[in-house]
């Protein structure tokens, strides 16, 4: 699905609106942006006038003094050394160095702050957006894909408007100042040097784009290589049992060869890039030597030796600003897709949201009514059609039936993770679309099939739904779900995603978490299928307690778990096929009876074989 999403971003020429959008973020800090611009321009100005100061030093101090010295020497006098001029110029050089150092201090600070703050902000917006988006969005988006929006794409994009921007501002500033200064001194030589600029620009952008193209390609192959390693390490048993080690290694060589080729191409163009650009500068410098030299020795000389040296200097540094500008251009191109992915995610609208004037539920009694409800996840594939169902407050309901029959969908609809595509779902007689999501969900207790814990202690996980629970209440909740063991393990770290606990332990904690929240409606989706039999027996005891005094809806793979529910609904192909208590349905000897007997047998067998 990630690839589908990306496709629509591949629009060219979107770089200007992208940059504009990005700049609205940095323009939230106008002071920093101005400070940054001024500092960078200051550096550019000082570096641009460097050759001129150098020229003045040669022309005004060194050359006259040297010729004076020579004259005096020729006349047999002992020449006097006047260091004043030199001293002053050295101070000027030093002062310029100080200005640069100060400006560098300034722009690193401003750029750094802009980057960190904009990154902070974009990440904040992304995360908040992700919390708003509905289940249907998450069904289509892989976690890893979303993760790299927040982690790597934001870095790429913010680097562009901080460090990337330094280069482009410096480059443009340097270029403009140099050209102005050169024309002020000698327009003929200035023209020679300036002519090189467009040539440099075209060449550098052309090559940069080639480098970008190949390095992108290399990056793509690199991730394919990572995937190949990953896959064939995980699938090693298959490879070994099928004796495919050599074949897959051979196939891998094709991939690594592609990687080598594009890596090399990218390095090749990088290698040609600098020498070529510098050579173009040298051509300009050569022309300067020729014409400048002629001018310097003409009678009378039209330029001084210092001017010649200065222009030679300009000719050889002119490629630097061009280089930086082209680097920015390539960087902007390179992060364009990252930026578009970020912005399109920010523009995604949640499918389920609170309607205008939505009211809060009071304390929910627990009547749930499906009125003619139709639902589909995908257009044209109806999962539920015209379902009518009434669940009374305080009832315990079990949903059974084959996978894909629509059990989980019923739960998803009740939780308003999805909204019905047709019909009305009422809770306590009110259409829940007119109510707030928060007031509904904060009164639900949901235990999902695969328990998810957050890193932190056991306790932190249990009080997830009710942060202000007392020690006693926690203990009570644990007792209720048959997880007394945890009473003394509350401070244990569960690890990332609860990795330090076994599946069964995780499920127990998630049970306690749901119970502690004292929900009005309790929902369990195949929650015991990942638990071993002993744990299940424990939970079994607890469930009866949980169901007391609240509406509860349970999907259980193991039917023994739901035997005691008030009503059992057999769901198949989006319809309610049987409805009644365990005994009613067993007597009916219909679908439920078959399911139950077969399962019991299998379970017993398994139990025997597992000991």
């Amino acid at each position, binding site marked *: 699905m990630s690839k589908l999403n990306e496709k629509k971003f591949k629009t060219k020429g979107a770089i200007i609106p992208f940059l504009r959008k990005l700049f609205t973020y940095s323009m939230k800090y106008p002071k920093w942006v101005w400070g940054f611009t001024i500092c960078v321009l200051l550096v550019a100005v000082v570096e641009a006038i460097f050759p001129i100061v150098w020229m003045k030093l040669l022309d005004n101090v060194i050359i006259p003094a040297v010729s004076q010295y020579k004259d005096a020497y020729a006349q047999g006098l002992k020449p006097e050394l006047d260091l004043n001029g030199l001293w002053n110029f050295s101070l000027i050089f030093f002062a310029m160095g100080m200005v640069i150092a100060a400006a560098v201090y300034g722009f690193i600070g401003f750029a750094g702050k802009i980057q960190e703050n904009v990154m902070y902000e974009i990440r904040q917006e992304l995360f908040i957006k992700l919390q708003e988006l509905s289940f249907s969005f998450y069904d289509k988006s892989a976690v890893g894909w979303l993760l790299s929006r927040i982690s790597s794409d934001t870095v790429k994009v913010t680097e562009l408007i901080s460090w990337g921007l330094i280069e482009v501002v410096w480059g443009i500033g340097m270029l403009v100042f140099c050209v102005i200064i050169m024309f002020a001194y000698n327009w003929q030589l200035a023209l020679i040097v300036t002519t090189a600029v467009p040539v440099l620009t075209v060449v550098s952008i052309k090559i940069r784009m080639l480098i970008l193209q190949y390095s992108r390609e290399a990056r793509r192959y690199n991730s394919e290589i990572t995937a190949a390693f990953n896959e064939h390490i995980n699938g090693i048993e298959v490879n070994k049992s099928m004796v495919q080690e050599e074949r897959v290694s051979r196939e891998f060589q094709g991939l690594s060869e592609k990687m080598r080729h594009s890596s090399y191409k990218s390095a090749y163009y990088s290698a040609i890039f600098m020498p070529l650009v510098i050579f173009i500068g*040298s051509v300009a*410098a050569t022309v300067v030597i020729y014409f400048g030299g002629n001018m310097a020795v003409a009678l009378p000389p039209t330029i001084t*030796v210092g001017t010649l040296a200065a222009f030679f200097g300009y000719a050889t540094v002119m490629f630097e600003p061009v280089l930086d500008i082209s680097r920015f251009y390539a960087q902007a191109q390179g992060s364009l897709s990252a930026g578009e992915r970020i912005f399109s995610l920010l523009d995604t609208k949640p499918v389920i949201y609170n309607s205008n004037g939505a009211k809060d539920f009071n304390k929910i009694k627990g009547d749930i009514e499906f009125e003619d409800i139709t639902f589909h996840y995908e257009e044209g594939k109806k999962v539920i059609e015209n379902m009518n169902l009434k669940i009374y407050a305080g009832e315990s309901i079990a949903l059974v039936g084959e996978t894909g029959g629509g059990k989980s969908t019923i739960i998803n609809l009740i939780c308003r993770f999805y909204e019905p595509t047709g019909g009305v779902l009422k809770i306590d007689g009110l259409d829940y679309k007119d109510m707030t999501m928060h007031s509904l969900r904060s009164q639900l207790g949901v235990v999902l099939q695969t328990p998810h814990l957050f890193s932190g202690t056991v306790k932190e996980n249990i009080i997830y739904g009710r942060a202000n629970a007392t020690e006693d209440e926690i203990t009570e909740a644990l007792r209720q779900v048959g997880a007394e063991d945890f009473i003394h393990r509350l401070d244990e770290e569960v690890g990332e995603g609860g990795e330090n606990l076994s599946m069964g332990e995780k499920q127990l904690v998630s049970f306690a978490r749901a119970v502690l*929240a004292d929900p009005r409606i309790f929902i369990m989706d195949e929650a015991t299928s990942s638990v071993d039999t002993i744990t299940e027996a424990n939970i079994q005891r607890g469930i009866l307690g949980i169901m007391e005094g609240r509406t509860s809806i349970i999907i259980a793979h193991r039917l023994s778990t739901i035997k005691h529910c008030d009503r059992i609904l057999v769901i198949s192909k989006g319809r309610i096929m049987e409805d009644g208590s365990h005994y009613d349905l067993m007597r009916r000897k219909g679908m439920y009876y078959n399911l139950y007997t077969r399962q019991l047998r299998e379970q017993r067998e398994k139990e025997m074989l597992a000991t």
Partner: protein
Amino acid sequence: MKSFLKIFEILDKWKYHYITAAVLLLISVSMRMLEPKILQIVVDKVIVFFLSDGKTRMVADDAVSKLIYNFLPEWKLENLSIMLIYLGVIFLVVSLFRGLFSFVSSALSASSTEKAMKKLRDKLFSHIQQLPLEYYSKTPTGELVQRCTGDVETIRKFSSMHVVEVLRLTAVFIGAFTMMALININYALIAVMFVPVIFFGGIFFFRKEGKIWREHEKRQDKLTSIVQENLSGIRVVKAFAKEQYEIEKFTSMNKEKKEWGLKLMGLHRIFWPSSDFFVHLQIAISIFAGGYFALSNTITVGEFVAFYSYATLVTWPMRRVPQLISEMGMTSVAIDRLYSILDTEEEKYEGKINGGKKILGNIEFKDVYFRYDKNDPHYVLNGASFKINACENIALLGPTGSGKSTIISLLLRFYEPENGTITIDGKNINEYSKTYLRHKFGVVLQKPFLFSTTLKDNIAYVQPDTELDEVIESAKVANIHRIIEEIFPKSYETVVGEKGVTLSGGQKQRVTLARTLLKNPDILVLDDSTSSVDSETEFEIQKALRGIIEDKTTIVIAHRITSIQDCDRIIVLDKGKVIESGTHEELIANNGFYKKIYDIQVSIEDEINDELSENREASNVKHETRDSKRQPLNGKHEKIK
């Protein structure tokens, strides 16, 4: 240091190219050193010569100038233009060669590095494929993947960037210093006065920066893991309506990351301007000193001009080198880690019996002992002995941990038994080459693993060029053909894992079954391979398999007694030993473990009947009270039905 030298081993036969690249780089840098010299000649000699109407004759005063003089025309007044053109051309030629050498050098070092890296990757990949399974049980997959990708990348950067850059910068430094020393040694020394400060300051800084950077990365990683945890648990978050809480959690970490980012920036903000300061101080001092020498006629104006260029060249590189050095630190670790993988011994595949006729499948385990860990006192196979005859259909039954899957692993020679012998067709299993042996076995593993390619390629894994017809044939037997055609968008061309295409456990198992069947093995092994398939489908599969397995030795590990009743013989294992063996009827008669399991069926029926009759009374009462409430609902139900 020793590990750094291993880079030459990694560079393999391309190391000569690499060394050539280094030499070319040095030549290119030397060329660079000539450029200021040309300007010096222009200023000192040419301009002075022509301005003084040829009165001042020019002598070359150092070796480099002498060299350049050789290419110049005669010093005559009317030669001004020619002189300048010559100088221009020399400059251009020098610059051209400098560029050319630099280009060839970079291209050469890149090509040798990339070739060596390709070889390294290939070697790693095939080496890893050949490592014994034992190695995998000890090394986490993620780490292994990280070694093969991240560490290779570190080495690549080291070879293609770091070494080259350090060499270049050092050469520039030495070259510029030498050129200065040629003009005036005192001046040269003054011009590098602050270089140690800049260099060691940099080393010091990057050591400190590294620490802060790692802290910063830690925060970054933490932030990422918060997001990851949130996203993978988003359903829980929504179910508990805890979005706000999650946002707060994220915000506080996001802030902390920002703080560390700013801290890191603060460090750079001190370092770069200070090093700028020293660089500029150094340059100002060089200018002053140079000016002084020029004024006191120790050096010429041209030399001063050249000097200034060299002085700049000498200072800037020293800013870059410390950063490179700190980045290079990772390389030796990376190299060591990769060698620890490469030095692990590969599995030995050879064996006396290596091809030829069909394996019939007379298998015998004689007193086989085995454990995965030599320090574990508990044996997984604890003197297991049994016999399987050719063409028999055998079922292995037993509690978890009784050694069923281990038997399969030993048969495939993934591991060797510690004691006892295993023979196939009367020959010790050690005599078979592993390649041959595994070719003849067809195993469907307990955990179905699919590769992220098309379904067709998954099924035709052993022979990618298999015709689709044959693929469909096996898919039909595995009862997955219809599902592939109906459910998956691109049928057999559907790529597993792409665009949210996921297969249920049962579907995966059936695809892997089809994969094994297509191999047409002599001995078929099904390791609990239909556990996630529902009973009806399992029955269908068995029916379809019957024709295929008739003349093949088949070993089935199962947990449902119903699915193995028709096997020729059932071997019951417990704690690594065979406790019972025989046909279904024999085992029932034996009244042992097997019988107990079998009896469940009967006992359940009785149980349910008891339960129903017992509860009839109670449930009737309970339901009457509710019936009034339920009336409207029942009415609606009728309509639906």
